[in-house]
């Protein structure tokens, strides 16, 4: 790949000078229909399963759309109004779900942003077995939430689980991980950190390796210790990576579903029933698609606003 810098430049030159007989230049050599033919399969899928549904979902949300009933009367913004009206039947479950999602995001994101950074700094050192170690911490993420979910329900079992047994060895009484709060949140956040930490670590690591070594050397010459190097070289060098990780992690945590579905089943009470659980229960189990799509758009608006704030806040600071 090292020679490609030159070949790229040469190609430009060749197109400009060495090949005058070609008419119209490189870009018009294909049949005019070719790009459209190549794009057609993807564009069909995009329209059918992304753009179409996004618009169709808004249409559904404007109806009293019960999947099981033949009549789906148009009701305008009533589904949205109901979600904002404390007296409606959808208000309480939806906002409880939003609250659960918010708690999970606030509780999990700091760990998911900071712990992988620490591990990435550890992994950025050279040592034998480094890539094996990297693969080991990434492995849980490869497994997916279903395997991790049933595994942790077992590990967290108050009677037969490994965690309570290990805690018992150091004299701590059994904890009802799935039956009591705040233990249930601790369990769900903990298992999520364990499950997805490798993903953020790998991204941090790529970012760390992109910071030029001479920046550290220059800092050393200026007499910076390792803490100052971290603060003034590493952190600024990771700015864009931090924006990416913070944004994707907030979104991933706000999408939390499988952990609650498999491990706590939304309990104790409804305390860990997240917004996605409420919405899928409403739309895909009770088949009240109208109110469920309205819920999904309200949550989506929240997430888009939060991502925009993340993005702007961190970008702004960069400019100063």
């Amino acid at each position: 790949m090292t020679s490609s810098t030159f070949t790229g430049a040469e190609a430009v030159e060749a197109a400009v000078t060495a090949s005058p007989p070609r008419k119209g230049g490189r870009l018009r050599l294909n049949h005019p229909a070719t790009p459209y033919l190549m794009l057609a399969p993807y564009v069909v899928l995009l329209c059918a399963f992304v753009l179409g549904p996004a618009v169709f979902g808004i249409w559904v949300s404007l109806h009293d759309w019960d999947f099981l009933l033949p009549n789906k009367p148009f009701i305008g913004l009533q589904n949205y109004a109901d979600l904002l009206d404390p007296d409606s039947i959808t208000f309480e479950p939806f906002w409880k779900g939003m609250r659960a999602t918010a708690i999970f995001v606030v509780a999990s994101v700091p760990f998911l942003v900071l712990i992988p950074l620490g591990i990435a700094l550890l992994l950025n050192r050279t040592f034998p077995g480094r890539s094996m170690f990297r693969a080991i911490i990434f492995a849980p993420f490869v497994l997916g939430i279903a395997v991790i979910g049933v595994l942790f329900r077992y590990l967290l079992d108050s009677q037969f689980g490994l965690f309570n047994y290990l805690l018992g060895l150091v004299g701590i009484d059994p904890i009802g991980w799935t039956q009591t709060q705040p233990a249930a949140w601790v369990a769900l956040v903990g298992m999520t950190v364990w499950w997805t930490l490798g993903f953020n670590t790998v991204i941090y690591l790529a970012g760390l390796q992109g910071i030029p070594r001479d920046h550290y050397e220059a800092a050393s010459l200026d007499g910076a210790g390792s803490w100052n190097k971290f603060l003034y070289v590493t952190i600024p060098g990771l700015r864009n990576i931090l924006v990416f990780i913070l944004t994707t992690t907030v979104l991933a945590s706000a999408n939390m579903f499988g952990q609650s579905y498999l491990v706590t089943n939304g309990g104790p009470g409804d305390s860990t029933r997240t917004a996605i659980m409420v919405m899928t229960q409403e739309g895909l189990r009770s088949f009240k698609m109208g109110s469920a799509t309205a819920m999904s758009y309200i949550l989506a608006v929240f997430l888009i606003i939060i991502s925009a704030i993340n993005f702007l806040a961190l970008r702004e600071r960069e400019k100063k």
Partner: protein
Amino acid sequence: MTTTEPTNSELARSADGPSPVRRRRAYRQDRNGPVFWIGIIVLALIFVIPLLWMFLTSFRTVEDSRRIPMTLIPDEFTLRAYQLLFADEQNPVFLWALNSFIAAAAHAILVVVVASMAAYALARMQFRGKNALFVIIIATLFVPGFIFLMPNYLIMDQLGWLDTLIALIVPGAAGAFGVFFLRQFFLAIPKELEESARIDGANTWQIFLRVVLPNAKPALVTLGVLSFLGNWNDFIWPVFVLFSPERLTLPAGLATLQAAYNIDYPVVMAGATIAALPVLILFIFVQRYVIEGVATSGLKG
């Protein structure tokens, strides 16, 4: 000729990118003390033990799985859990594994074929509406996936795809990641290769199939593997669009298995092991592609 500029900087970047790392490694070896090694080993154990526990419990007797004190190694290894699963017609785990494999493989192939064609058109061709289309594709990356759950469920119903594997294979291939990812890679392939094939008389399709795709093999493998894993592990969508016991994939099946066997943990762990082993084995062979694919997605974003 303005379109060539980003390509060159791409090339420059990818050319500088990996080499200093390799050079650095050659002359520089960090000195790591015992504290470092203890930290590394403890961390590794935190990740290995739960998975090992799952695997070993699947060979335990029910009594052993509930005995205090617990032991890492089972008293006796029994295949009871696997035999139970094999005979359980309500929870046909091996059929789920087959379904998962068919869906994930078909999905991965579909994604690679569809995305590579679209990405090539976007990377190398000029046509009306190109910029608008690219902006739309990028914009869909920022839309949270759950808003498609309900409308796509209704579309699956209209198409007669509910409770079929097609519902798992096709809609997900509309995702923008593959197109975006491959476009970046195609932009970094030296144009010279395509130019010389053109001079030899190859048409666009021949260039695409015989020059571009072979040169993009690492990216195609990465995208294929990431799509396979993503589909194999997908949970929320199959839980709702599949219902018949014989149509489920492993993740959706594990949820019903957990409900059916509750605290017969060896059986539930056997199901989890059957779901986990194929991907872990795949991961051992392709971990470089997976990890680098994830890492570059972060750098681009």
